[in-house]
């Protein structure tokens, strides 16, 4: 009996890996031939995306993904980490009981709702006050920054609370102020956990599609500023999927292959960082 249950659990554990393997095999099978045919260099570093004319350069989308994600982190990480330190160290208990569920609730809002807010409210605001088309990298970064907050705050609060109380008590006993304790003692101790949270959030930002399609404008050229429109890798697949046949379709799978490596690199970094102790 015990052995059967163990086998059943083993099967369950394998199923998710099998799904991953199936996905990987499928997108590689569909995507790699077109990368080989147009040349890996031309594919990764080409700047012209004209699939019906046989030009498949996805550099603008790689740049788009990097900029949108970097922007989201630049806005979201300071906010999220500050919020986590407040919740873990300074907030009165009744505030924590309101703030923490409220932040967790952010994770439950469907991305299309964020996108809708971005289109209706944020993009016109940016267009009016900062110029450009409004549907831009900045708009996408702002929306993503809010979307990744729950991940960053949640993981950061856990890792700050996991620090031994003795560190803090020792620092305070030595005459350090609250700020000195936070900056010199608690931040270094919680840093690896917080970094893991940031990288989880980064994974979410890279993968987000719906909200980004709605607010980034989806232009196919390399952006010159954060007020320009850009298209991310995920958005490229989702937008053109419905109409793509033949080589065009393969090129979208190849975009998926690039995205696959993107995410794998991020996950590898995340595992490294989470394992490291300071």
């Amino acid at each position: 009996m015990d052995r059967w249950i163990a086998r059943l659990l083993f099967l369950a554990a394998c199923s998710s890996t099998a799904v991953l393997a199936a996905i990987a095999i499928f997108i590689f099978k569909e995507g790699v031939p077109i990368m080989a045919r147009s040349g890996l260099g031309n594919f990764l570093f080409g700047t012209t995306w004209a699939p019906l004319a046989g030009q498949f350069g996805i550099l603008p989308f790689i740049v788009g993904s990097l900029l949108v994600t970097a922007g989201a982190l630049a806005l979201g990480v300071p906010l999220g980490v500050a919020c986590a330190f407040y919740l873990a160290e300074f907030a009165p208990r009744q505030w924590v009981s309101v703030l923490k569920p409220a932040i967790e609730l952010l994770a439950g809002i469907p991305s299309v709702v964020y996108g809708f807010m971005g289109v209706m409210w944020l993009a016109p605001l940016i267009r009016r006050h900062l110029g450009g088309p409004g549907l831009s990298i900045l708009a996408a970064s702002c929306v993503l920054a809010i979307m990744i907050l729950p991940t960053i705050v949640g993981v950061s609060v856990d890792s700050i609370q996991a620090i031994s109380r003795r560190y803090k008590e020792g620092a305070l006993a030595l005459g350090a102020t609250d700020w000195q304790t936070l900056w010199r003692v608690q931040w270094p101790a919680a840093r690896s956990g917080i970094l893991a949270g940031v990288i989880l959030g980064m994974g979410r930002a890279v993968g987000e599609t719906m909200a980004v399609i709605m607010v980034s404008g989806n232009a196919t050229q390399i952006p010159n500023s954060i007020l320009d429109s850009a298209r991310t890798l995920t958005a490229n697949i989702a937008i053109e999927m419905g109409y793509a046949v033949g080589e065009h379709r393969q090129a979208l799978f190849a975009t998926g292959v690039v995205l696959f490596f993107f995410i794998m690199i991020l996950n590898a970094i995340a595992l490294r960082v989470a394992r490291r102790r300071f």
Partner: protein
Amino acid sequence: MKTRSKGTMPVCTSLAVLGLLLGSGCSRSTGRSVTLAGSTAFQPFAEKLAERYMATHAGARVNVQGGGSAVGIQSALSGAAEIGMADLLQLPDEAKALSATIVARDGIAIVVHPKNPVVALSAEQARAVFSGKTANWKVLGGPDAAIRVISREEGSGTRRSFDKLVLAGEALAAGSLFQNSNGTVREAVASDAAAVGYVSVGLVNKRVKALKYNGVDPTNADVANGTYPLARPIFFLTRGALAPHVQEFVDYVLSPEAQGILEHEGLIRAK
């Protein structure tokens, strides 16, 4: 946090797999059911006709799926759908093996923000605007503001028709923004005073202003009598001899009653 996400993953995966299985089960055509797939521009109209058809023909089942004109051609070729829908000016070579029936026609209107003072574009002006050669509204008698071109994505039926009719071989402006449906193009234009885009005539409403093209207003009457040139046919694509129940549905769509519905909804009769 970590344990929770690990716990929900297999559940999500199995739900997704279940969804796929159910989805493929539904789309498989059995018995008297007819499956249509393709053009997202025609999809809402096809759904309306399917509803009416099923209400008046007991036992008939009509499934309407989107996916885009390319999917319409593919699924008609592969047999995944009895009828493929495509809204293309010219059918591509791979559709040679299919028989095509024009079921309606649809005009394409060039639209701007209602506050934009520009009211008309000649064919040359339109080509210059969409190819990026004219980059400021001032040139066309509008305000001193950069023109923001909003287009459909590469491969879309509306886009292909527009490319052929208006751009005529020139490339779209490099900095164009893209929206992936007629409706979102309209919303993007409605919210941006410097934008210009193109949508189905049936989708023009008072949130945007349709421009005259070569001096002709994009009205259905003018598309129907041929004076407004920006229009494309909507095809039903089928392969080989039709089963009686499929033929019956195609006949229904071409009947005066169904054509009247299409006209009422903003399309143009096939004949």
